[in-house]
């Protein structure tokens, strides 16, 4: 277990290194930091002196090492637009995005497990067939279209729900402001989280259904029936447990994908999270902010993937933890 842990951490470190290298070369090639600092009025000689002083003439390696050294201490430069440390700007927006992902994940778990299990137990029922049909349509609808149409129906036509922003937020700890604890915030959260969940729901329902159907065919379930256990016990204690293994693996990968989809959802709903901020930064060519976003999102991906691998190793005793040789 410990060898596996070390191997995974080592791999995570390599991936983070590659991400930081990529981010740095973006920063190196995108825009001129001098122009952002001094504007047009400074003479050519002063510029050259300043370049030398800032170390912009050093070799790529020296500059990268300096960047990495600062990055490890949490200093990713100052945002050109906000005039604040880029990492702080990103982290201030992080809770909004995480709340969105959390709400969507909750919706997915609460809906997909019962629906998936039911349509595996009773594949011939009308409900199961309807679920499969709807999930096929669901896979084919891009998330931004779901978002736009839900805005049109529930905000513009019916006027039931707000169409943009987070609504009233309350201060919790540090820079964490939340909309989870009041009605207005929850109402604002409803449409974005449903849209975000809608892209993953069909996938998970189909996955749980397919896995469950396979598990229900296996010998140990037949044995459980023969023992005369109650159906609920067989379905939820025996079968569901083994169904969840592949679901965890896929789920871990999909959390990363969800972060990507938050960019789309946040744009449609003008949700003040990281994704929305990133697109604004791109439009303003705010390089430090772009780099900070890349590193934060890269870290999220690496951390979730490592955790999922570890959980998978813990849950599934047949997984060979140290290499597959």
């Amino acid at each position, binding site marked *: 277990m410990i060898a596996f842990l070390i191997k995974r951490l080592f791999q995570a470190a390599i991936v983070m290194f590659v991400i930081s290298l990529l981010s740095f070369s973006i920063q190196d090639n995108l*825009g001129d930091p001098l122009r952002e600092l001094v504007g047009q009025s400074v003479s050519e000689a002063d510029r050259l002196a300043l370049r030398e002083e800032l170390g912009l003439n050093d070799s790529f390696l020296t500059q990268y090492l300096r960047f990495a050294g600062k990055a490890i201490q949490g200093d990713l430069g100052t945002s050109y637009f906000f005039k604040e440390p880029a990492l702080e700007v990103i982290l201030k927006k992080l809770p909004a995005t995480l709340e969105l992902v959390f709400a969507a994940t909750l919706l997915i778990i609460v809906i997909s497990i019962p629906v998936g299990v039911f349509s595996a137990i009773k594949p011939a029922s009308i409900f199961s067939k309807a679920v499969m049909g709807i999930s*096929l349509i669901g896979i084919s609808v891009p998330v931004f*279209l779901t978002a736009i149409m839900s805005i049109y129906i529930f905000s513009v036509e019916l006027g039931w729900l707000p169409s943009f922003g987070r609504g009233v937020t309350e201060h919790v700890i540090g820079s964490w402001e939340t909309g989870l604890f009041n009605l207005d915030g929850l109402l604002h959260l409803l449409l974005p989280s449903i849209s975000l969940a809608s892209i993953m729901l069909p996938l998970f329902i*189909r996955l749980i259904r397919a896995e469950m159907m396979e598990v229900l065919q296996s010998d140990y379930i037949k044995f459980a029936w023969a023992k005369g256990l109650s159906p609920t016990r067989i379905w939820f204690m025996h079968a569901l447990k083994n169904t969840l293994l592949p679901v965890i693996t896929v789920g871990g990968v999909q959390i990363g994908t969800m972060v990507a989809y938050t960019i789309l959802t946040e744009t449609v709903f003008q949700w003040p999270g990281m994704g929305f901020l990133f697109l604004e930064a791109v439009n303003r060519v705010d390089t430090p902010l772009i780099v900070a976003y890349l590193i934060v999102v890269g870290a999220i*991906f690496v951390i979730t993937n490592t955790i999922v691998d570890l959980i998978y190793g813990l849950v599934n005793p047949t997984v060979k933890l140290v290499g597959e040789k």
Partner: protein
Amino acid sequence: MSQNTIATLLKMPNLWQRLKRSHLIHSFKKDKVAIASFTILMLFVGAAILAPLLAPFDPYDPSTIDIMDSELPPVWQEESEGKFLLGTDAQGRDLLSTMLYGMRTSLLIGICAVLLQCFLGVVVGLCAGYFGGRIDSFLMRIADIQLSFSTLMVAIVVLAVFQASFGAELYSKLALIMLILVIGIAEWPQYARTIRASVLAEKHKEYVDAARVMGFRNSRIMLHHILPNTLSPLLVISTVQIANAIISEASLSFLGLGMPVSQPSLGSLIASGFEYIFSGSWWISAIPGIVLVVLVMVINLLGDWLRDALNPKLYKD
């Protein structure tokens, strides 16, 4: 070589006969959903190819566009003028014509991107599966790492950085090629993994051993002997991949990282209509949206059918 080609050509009618009697066509004829999806897909593809002939207006020609015609609803609405069948968008372009051209762009990007993915994936997958050992574990580790990052995320980041460094003006000219390249490169691991798995299954069969004993070169065994036997999984994932590529393209264009408004794909058309939804002009977003969903759905349905038809062992779901 030329004799070979002639021999193949002579065999063609025979091949057609074989295809007609094959399991694939037989199962296609039985499956009503597959026939319907195929018909719809062909209608779409046909309309996209013939867009310059079918479209009542030319959306790329600014002289035919009148800003006074903007945001006219489709003919079945009350305030419609009747000149534009599906209404007009915010710039006064005929929505039907713009959509036909947009579908062309979307399909072109989807298909080219998948061809690129397929090429890269097949090369990597064949090498990894056939040579095995260090090469295999190295290539597959890269594939794993790339897959662990969502492809959409990778595409968004790459395109965003390019847009920021090129400037929006130049970028809009290169958008088509950039989209194909980025979607093409971002998804190769899917193909590489599938091909590798099939190659591993085929590699130890007798016919490969026979070819090796006869002294054929590795490249010949890989391309002429093993590759043809991995075609069915390739076909199945290709359908899904085209559907995904079209959705990815639409999403990127929606974010303003794809096709410019002057040459809209379905995604950028939906994006351009989004602002006008609040004033009640739902059709600019909704009609291209429906077309996009139907297009992707029929491709997915065909993929489902193909998977079942080519792999009878698989249970139906």
